[in-house]
């Protein structure tokens, strides 16, 4: 299988403080990777660096995505190239309806790919289909992005956007946080429906419960800015039984 993403010796800082201290990670097309680890180990930093958040500075190392130097691309071009982040805390955007927001996103991507803008009928049909996939209420679609949404609705809206944009590599940053078990199931089912043979995911989570629904091929443990352990799905069970202390003690 082809390498979709290669992270080599990645170091990154925020406000001068080093958070990532030499990450090495390779994701092949079609794989689902879980990244687990205790609080403050750098999981969210890694996802933010991948999508180009301006607050983070890469000080060393490289990221190759689809054979391109990812660090040279703007956040929007990374998106157009198929990188998607489901935010841990989705942002509220008062006054911008989900419909207008998605239309701007879809058409920007099409322009990047040299395609004509999508016509209104086609677009609305796509909205309907994808909304059904994650049980997103049609009333929400006319509201401002995330404004006044419950925690579950916000996460469902993230997966809806993911469905619309059909990413090649999706990063789910603590998508399970703040969800009750029913909402978790709906969100996870949405993610599974979107899975294709050539698409990959990085699932970032503290807990096992999301991984009961989204089955990872490979599990990494991130601790203190480095990946300290990589194994198969059985590692999830081990962490669930033993917690993170043994990892901390070993490193």
């Amino acid at each position, binding site marked *: 299988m082809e390498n979709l993403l290669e992270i080599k010796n990645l170091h990154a800082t925020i406000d001068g403080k080093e958070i990532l201290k030499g990450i090495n990670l390779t994701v092949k097309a079609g794989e689902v990777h879980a990244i687990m680890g205790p609080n403050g180990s750098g999981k969210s930093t890694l996802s933010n660096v991948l*999508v*180009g*958040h*301006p607050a983070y500075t890469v000080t060393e190392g490289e990221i190759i995505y689809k054979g391109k130097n990812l660090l040279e691309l*703007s*956040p*929007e071009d*990374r*998106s*157009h190239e198929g990188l*998607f*982040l489901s*935010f841990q805390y*989705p*942002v*509220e*955007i*008062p*006054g*911008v309806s989900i419909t*207008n*927001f998605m239309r*701007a*996103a*879809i058409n*920007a*991507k099409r322009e*990047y790919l040299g395609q004509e803008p999508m016509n209104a009928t086609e677009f609305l049909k796509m909205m309907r289909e994808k909304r059904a996939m994650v049980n997103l209420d049609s009333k929400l679609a006319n509201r*401002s992005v995330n404004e006044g949404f419950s925690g579950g609705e916000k996460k469902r809206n993230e997966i809806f*956007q993911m469905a619309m*944009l059909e990413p090649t590599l999706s990063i789910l940053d603590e998508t399970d946080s703040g969800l009750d078990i029913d909402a978790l199931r709906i969100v996870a089912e949405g993610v599974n429906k979107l899975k294709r043979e050539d698409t990959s995911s990085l699932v970032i989570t503290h807990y096992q419960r999301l991984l009961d629904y989204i089955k990872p091929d490979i599990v990494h443990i991130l601790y203190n800015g480095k990946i300290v352990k990589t194994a198969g799905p059985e590692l999830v069970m081990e962490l669930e039984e033993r917690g993170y202390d043994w990892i901390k003690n070993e490193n």
Partner: protein
Amino acid sequence: MECVQEYINLFESNKALIDKPCTQKLNEEREKAFVRFRAEGFPKLKDENWLHTNVAKKFETDYGMDLGRKAGANSVKGSFTCDVPNLKTVRGYIVNDCFTIAGEDRNKLPKGVLIGKINEIAESNPEIIDSFYNQLASKGDSIVQFNTSFVQDGIILYVPKNTVIDETIQIVAQLQTNVDILTNRRLLVVMEENSHASLLLCDHSSTDKKSLSIEVTEIFIGRGASLDLYELEETTESNTRLGNLFVNQKHDSRFNHCNITLTNGFTRNYIEVVLDGEGADTNINGLAIGDKKQHIDNRTLVEHKKGHCTSNELYKYILDEESIGVFAGKMLICTDAQQTVSQQTNRNLCLTSCARMYAQPQLEIYADDVKCSHGSTVGQLDENALFYMQQRGIPADEARHLLMYAFAGEVIDNIKLEALRERLHILVEKRFRGELNHCKGCNLCK
């Protein structure tokens, strides 16, 4: 010599010429106003009401004033239209300070409605001007007195009892000049009991010459009557506008106002609404978009004189580059105004570190059973929202525009005329994209 003295001399040496084309009432009020203007001069920066707006400086230019009424309203209609798609209008034009309306337009109005020049209507219906002219503006500041001193004509709109005008009356003001010019514009609107009208005033300029237009509008809204007033300012950087709006509302009347500064140079709008009858309701909205070195100052006073009235005020500013915004809004709840419900909101975006906003919300309450609130914020675009949008593939510039447009949308959504609302949404979007920088004529119809 100070410039105020030059205007005093100009007035005194041309008094006969100024008086000549005017009806007696205009000249009577002129005498009184000039006494006040001569005594007070132009407002100073230390004046509480003019703290951030140096208006006296704006009078220093050696403007031409058409006191001989030579220009007239020449053939504006052929060269200049101002259509809002899907909006039925009855349209009149102001060129500089001369008003015209075609007979065919006038005939579209219901029986008894009068629209025309002050001097003409003073001949046919003297009781209107005698009862209403300068009744509200006489207590205005020295800028208003300046207008009353020099004004030679204006517009009257009179809507009789129980008359509803379905079509929107649109008045398109335009400047056409080869020299720097000062114009005095005047509008008097009288809405008798249970009448209704909507009025759209478009203020344009197609000249690069310096211009100063001083506008005084007086509006009387009778018992149970309602008026929707939309003002759109779309001029050039060389234009200075000093607007003065006085509104008096009787029992159960309604007033909806939306004032949009889309492009301009230097703007000061004073708006005063007096709720002078129980159950009156007023909504005043404003949107100001500034960039370059533009200056936009809106000062409002809503005076609740009687009980059971409601007022809602929303003003928003979006300031880019080195533009300056000033907002001072006062709600005055008098002793008798029990059961008042009043709300004022002012929100402002400064897009650069050089843009400045001075906000001064004020609330004065003398009654003891009221529900009032006011609030003001100044901030920047939400960086988290911008990044979120970029992650979804929306380019940074486009994301900024979407956020600005969403911010402005709240004001535009309060406009009741759907066609105008749609049009303004498009215009504001174009404004943010920098596509309205060259105002050659009217953008409403492009």
